[in-house]
């Protein structure tokens, strides 16, 4: 698929980032659904004793699964970088690309590092006071599903860029699909209030519908990024032997424009 040998394939960086994206999302799904079994999430109405039992039932999975995220979680940056690159290819201001990059880069700490830390701390001392364990349980699940604004605004930024774009880097229908993803972050807000029912963090709306939309959205954008790379035309020539030695603001822009 990547075609050509390493030296002459002008798309090699894009393909590496794309394969790393696929690897990251596969790891992510396996860790959350299979290894840690934190998706579907635990019950928000659990009392301290039930939470303590939940932690002991998930003990090894939590520690091993989140250790894998501690080691490999930074690969998430590859999809952010590819999407940022896709926005740079669009006929819109660079402000869109940089906004997307910064929003998703800072989302990593509250969006997935917190759940890894909270669940690891909870699992590492099974004898801890159950009331404290429930505090960690809430921190883990709510920081994970309740870090909303970054994905809300980030999706809207990407959507707006796609809808304004004249280069047709992404189809317009995918622009509207970003709106669906943004809406999942709206309907998850009540999970900060409700302890049970459709709007709680494990409920039909706040979890089941959201996870289906997010899964579809992710699958679609990974496929569309692949199509973008396939369509990218850098010509067949070898890489430049001498890259620009030093670039100021003007030259940097020219470089990206050429890419």
């Amino acid at each position, binding site marked *: 698929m990547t075609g050509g040998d390493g030296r002459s394939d002008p798309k090699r*960086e894009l393909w590496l980032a794309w394969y790393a994206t696929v690897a990251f999302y596969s790891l992510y799904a396996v860790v959350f659904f299979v290894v840690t079994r934190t998706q579907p999430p635990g019950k928000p109405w659990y009392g301290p004793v039930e939470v303590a039992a939940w932690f002991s039932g998930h003990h090894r999975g939590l520690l091993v699964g989140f250790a894998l995220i501690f080691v490999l979680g930074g690969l998430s940056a590859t999809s952010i970088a590819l999407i940022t690159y896709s926005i740079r290819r669009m006929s819109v201001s660079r402000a869109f690309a940089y906004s997307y990059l910064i929003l998703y880069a800072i989302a990593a700490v509250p969006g997935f590092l917190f759940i890894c830390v909270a669940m690891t701390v909870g699992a590492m001392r099974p004898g801890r006071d159950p009331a404290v364990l429930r505090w960690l349980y809430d921190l883990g699940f709510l920081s994970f599903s309740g870090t909303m604004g970054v994905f809300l605004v980030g999706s809207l930024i990407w959507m707006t860029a796609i809808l304004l774009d004249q280069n047709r880097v992404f189809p317009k229908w995918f622009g509207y699909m970003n709106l669906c993803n943004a809406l999942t972050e709206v309907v998850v807000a009540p999970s900060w209030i409700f302890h049970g029912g459709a709007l709680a963090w494990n409920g039909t709306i706040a979890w089941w519908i959201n996870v289906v939309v997010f899964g579809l959205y992710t699958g679609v954008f990974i496929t569309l990024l692949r199509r973008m790379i396939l369509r990218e035309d850098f010509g067949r020539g070898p*890489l430049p032997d001498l890259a*620009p030695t030093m670039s100021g603001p003007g030259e940097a822009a020219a470089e990206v424009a050429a890419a």
Partner: protein
Amino acid sequence: MRRITGEQVIFWALPLVAVMWLAAFLLFPGFLPPMSPKWSAARVAAFYRDHTSRVRYSMVLFNWFCVALIPVLMLIVERMRGMAHRTPVLRYCVIGVAGAAPIAFLTSTIFWLLAAFRPDRAPSLTQLYNDLAWITFTCGIPFLVAICVFLAVSIYLDQQDRPVFGRWVAHFNVLIAVALVPAGFAGLTLSGAFAWNGLLSFWVKNVAIAVWILVMAVVLGRALPRHHEGLGTPA
């Protein structure tokens, strides 16, 4: 007289910042030797009662200066512009993790400071803050690992006659990434090499970070442009 470039200012601030990091590291009473995860809640609470001031001073210093790594990482990102890449995607990868790496550490300083804020609270709660601090500090490596991996790939792909960084710098980054990996597993055990105070999770990991900063500073210093010319028009 030659003018000093902005990049040189950032670069030569690094030794000063490194002095702050070293001072904070030595000042924190729980690093030499590292606190054991096997301490009882009562002993952890006693530690914060006995060393309240030193915990506060050291962690305020870290809180102030740990993020000073970001401008140095941006100097590396600027050097990546000179690499024989066709797209900026690898640069975006590094930028994408450059902020989160020190912010993860900053988060651990907040937990340490919280532990020391009310030393007379229930010991189980002080132990909770202490655990959160140590796990965030020890296991919060995903972005550092990623920086090393992204840099290694970038350097391997910089195939030109005079590459920005030598190929050995790529091998070196792979080695550091590998040295950081065991720390991610620190939650699995309270004793031994993988525990947060163990040989791998504390000593190997932190020495690796220190060596990485030192070596990358040297190669970065060599790759910095010496003169103003060629820097383009001043913005």
